[in-house]
């Protein structure tokens, strides 16, 4: 199985108008192939910056990132973004001027990895899998936010990425829709077993989804603590009431609350 993500001593410095801002400072994280790893932290801790470096939208100032041993990013070197590291964006990036079907199939079809009929068949199958059968001809404006997110996740998955990167995809959703989305995501995860790199500020979401949770400090970002979530898969919402979940949450809360307070006092804003 492929998709082992190795992040070693990564540092990132921004220099807007001469004010040196250290977004990331010596971040190290080893993610096994097929693992669902969630990075959690307060606003401005650099988690989006880290995701951007993995995805190829940004460069690293220090350290290394590699996938399955192949170097991905290092100071002065950066692999361009590609289908091997598909991203699901925070505010959603479905092309509003194209139908759902086009959005999903454009990656494989335009890169000639699949023929149009094949891609469309696969798209329809995935859509019904998450309860969205029949919306292929609609435009994103006609869909609810939850539906759009599911479509975007499918768009990412159909490109057969090595690692799936999700940038706080459920941030704009209300709590009820969020829990349904979690189950949809886990269903797709169980199907494909792709390595997932998921960032969020929502602690409960992190523990519910993850194999391991990495808690980051406020700027400059560092990995403060890694919590292994040993809850059984497949997971469902009933787990939220179990004592083990409560213990894990307590552990994570202690680590993150201090950071959240620091971020609040410092008035941190997201950089990336």
């Amino acid at each position: 199985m492929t998709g082992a993500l190795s992040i070693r001593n990564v540092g990132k410095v921004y220099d807007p108008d001469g004010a040196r801002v250290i977004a990331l400072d010596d971040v190290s994280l080893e993610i096994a192939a097929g693992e669902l790893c969630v990075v959690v932290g307060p606003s401005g801790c650099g988690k989006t910056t880290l995701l951007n470096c993995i995805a190829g939208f940004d460069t690293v100032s220090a350290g290394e990132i590699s996938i399955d041993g192949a170097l991905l990013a290092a100071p002065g070197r950066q692999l361009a973004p590609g289908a091997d590291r598909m991203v699901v964006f925070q505010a959603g990036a479905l092309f509003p001027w194209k139908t759902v079907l086009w959005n999903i199939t454009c990656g494989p079809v335009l890169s000639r990895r699949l023929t149009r009929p094949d891609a469309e068949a696969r798209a329809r199958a995935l859509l019904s899998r998450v309860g969205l059968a029949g919306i292929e001809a609609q435009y994103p404006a006609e869909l609810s936010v939850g539906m759009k997110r599911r479509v975007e996740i499918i768009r990412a998955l159909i490109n057969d990425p090595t690692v799936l990167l999700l940038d706080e995809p459920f941030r704009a959703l209300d709590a009820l829709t969020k829990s349904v989305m979690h189950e949809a995501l886990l269903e797709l995860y169980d199907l494909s077993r792709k390595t997932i790199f998921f960032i969020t500020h929502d602690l409960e979401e992190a523990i519910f989804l993850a194999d391991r949770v990495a808690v980051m400090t406020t700027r400059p970002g560092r990995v403060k603590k890694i919590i292994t979530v040993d809850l059984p898969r497949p997971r469902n919402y009933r787990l939220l009431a179990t004592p083990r979940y409560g213990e894990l949450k307590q552990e994570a809360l202690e680590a993150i609350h201090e950071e959240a307070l620091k971020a609040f006092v410092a008035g941190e804003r997201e950089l990336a």
Partner: protein
Amino acid sequence: MFREWFNRAPAFGLSLFTPVYYEHIAYSVYRAYTAFLLAVLLGVPIGLLMGWRQRVYRYTFPLLEMLRPIPPLAWVPLAILMLPGIEPPVIYVTFIAAFFATVLNTLLGVLTIDRSYFRAAECLGFSPRNVLLHVVVPGALPFIFTGLQIAMGLSWFALVAGEMIAGRRGLGYMIFDAYNMAQIPTIIMGMLTLGLLGYLSSALVRRLGRALMAWRSL
């Protein structure tokens, strides 16, 4: 005035029933639309390129900003000297007005496209041609059409001025001629016709825009 406009045998020779009236309209429309189309065919691609590629922008924007403040009308003498005949200078002056508005709005349209769409396209492996076709153009389309409506209005504006100065037929000329002969009803007739044509043209562009951007009104 209305008595003139709807009169079969108008006192000053121009009404809804005289062919000369439609001749003037035809000339004005021909000039306005030719200039407008030229401005679109040149302006939109240039604007797209400038918005998309920062390199192109850096080389061309300062030049553009130096030429833009020169009022279209100020080009008339030079245009008469540089271009042969009567029609080309008038069309050129109108073109200039529409061109700058189109380029600017198209440029702005590309710049307002959310960065996430470009990034998504990168992940999806779009070639530059695909990015242009499926992200840049559709994304800038709303602004492009706003620009086209403005350009259409400016076209008529510049056209009238051009015709008054250098034309021999057309609504602007008609108005000016009527003024020289103190035929007030004709003047007003011309003005209202212009207003109507201008309004209809903008509405046409608006309609076209709405059709091409069906996904917006959902």
